[in-house]
């Protein structure tokens, strides 16, 4: 199964990106194009999720999965924080910032997982997109609580409304939720005319986007000066533990195998868009070199190449 995954063009392009960065090739995907692809992928995944939910209706499963996702996103940072301060040797602020990333999710990891799972006949439920959207932000609140614990009166500039706004008005959250709602409203018939772009081109765009992600992840790793062996280890241990927890909870609350695997992958994945931006604003003292190198440089490639297969097999075993 890992061989199957590793010979899919989507993953091979990711590996090509890593390879190009490692041999210090000057291959580069223009920033605007990468951003355009990420907008396209989010709009497409949101739309498809909304359409599937508009077909299936709001089921109890959806509610349970949503609650589980919210709880995971809110609670996982506490566990990560403990590891990061004790084993990783990070200070309170850096640990809080990193923890927030691991509670939140990576849209591209989810999208890639959905493609690979679907290719294996394991299609996660449409509402998992809603779960994805719900899991983006609670972790930010936990991370801040952890980072600022015992300093409630600190008159930081970002306390209060400013940050809440930053979190919920974050571009990727708005686009994902907005497209989901558009999918809900438009339904299968309304989607028909725009389907060619959003469905037909999807996997090809994912290939090119992962090519860029491979470049970016590997460059971040090689250019970073902030990682040590313990942090590298944690960037592998945390996703594995989070992912296993996610799969288990998904199975316990009665999700089908594919959706439980997806919940595990969401739990295992670490944000590299919404959370870094929020942390840079809310915790400017935290070192972005640490959280970006861990989430983007190590956890992201680990999940794409190994994690997805790992958690889907775990889900099949215990499901």
């Amino acid at each position, binding site marked *: 199964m890992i061989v199957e995954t590793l010979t899919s063009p989507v993953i091979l392009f990711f590996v090509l990106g890593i390879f190009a960065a490692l041999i210090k090739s000057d291959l580069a995907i223009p920033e605007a194009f990468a951003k355009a692809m990420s907008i396209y992928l989010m709009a497409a995944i949101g739309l498809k999720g909304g359409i599937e939910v508009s077909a299936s209706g709001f089921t109890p499963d959806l509610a349970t999965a949503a609650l589980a996702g919210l709880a995971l996103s809110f609670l996982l940072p506490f566990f990560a924080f403990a590891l990061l301060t004790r084993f990783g040797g990070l200070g309170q602020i850096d640990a809080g910032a990193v923890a927030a990333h691991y509670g939140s999710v990576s849209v591209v990891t989810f999208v890639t997982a959905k493609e690979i799972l679907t290719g294996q006949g394991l299609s996660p439920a449409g509402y998992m997109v809603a779960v994805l959207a719900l899991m983006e932000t609670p972790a930010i609140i936990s991370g801040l609580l952890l980072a600022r614990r015992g300093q409630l009166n600190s008159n930081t500039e970002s306390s209060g409304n400013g940050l809440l706004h930053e979190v919920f008005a974050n571009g990727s959250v708005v686009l994902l939720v907005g497209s989901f709602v558009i999918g809900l409203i438009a339904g299968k018939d309304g989607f028909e005319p725009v389907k060619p772009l959003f469905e037909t081109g999807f996997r090809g765009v994912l290939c090119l986007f992962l090519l*860029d992600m491979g470049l970016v992840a590997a460059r*971040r790793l090689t*250019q970073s000066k902030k990682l040590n062996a313990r942090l590298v280890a944690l960037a592998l241990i945390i996703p594995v533990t989070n992912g296993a927890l996610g799969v288990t909870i998904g199975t316990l609350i009665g999700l089908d195998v594919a959706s439980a695997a997806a919940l595990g992958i969401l739990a295992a994945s670490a944000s590299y868009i919404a959370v870094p931006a929020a942390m840079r*604003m809310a915790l400017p003292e935290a070192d972005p070199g640490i959280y970006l190198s861990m989430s983007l440089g190590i956890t992201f490639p680990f999940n794409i190449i190994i994690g997805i297969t790992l958690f889907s097999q775990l889900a099949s075993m215990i499901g």
Partner: protein
Amino acid sequence: MVETVTRKRIEILVDTPLVPRLIKHAREVDISGWSLIHVDAGGGHDGAWQHDDVTEAAAKTIILIIASEAKAAALVDALAPLLDSYGLLLTVGDIQVVRGDRF
């Protein structure tokens, strides 16, 4: 020749997500305008970075501000406590401007 007056040219290199916050500080010391210059890449003590990162948290921008000496000093004072935590690179130079009353 047209009459010119001396003003300060301030450049602040800062992480893009923090730009709105610095603009707010500039507004508070009554600075009238600003422009954002596109920076593609850079390197320093903390390693190198490129703007083509997928996460915008890593991109940097230069805020260019033309202001009177007094306002420039007020801005530098206002930003002083943030220099380290925000990792700002702040430079101030002298330039001549026409229509100096606007700044």
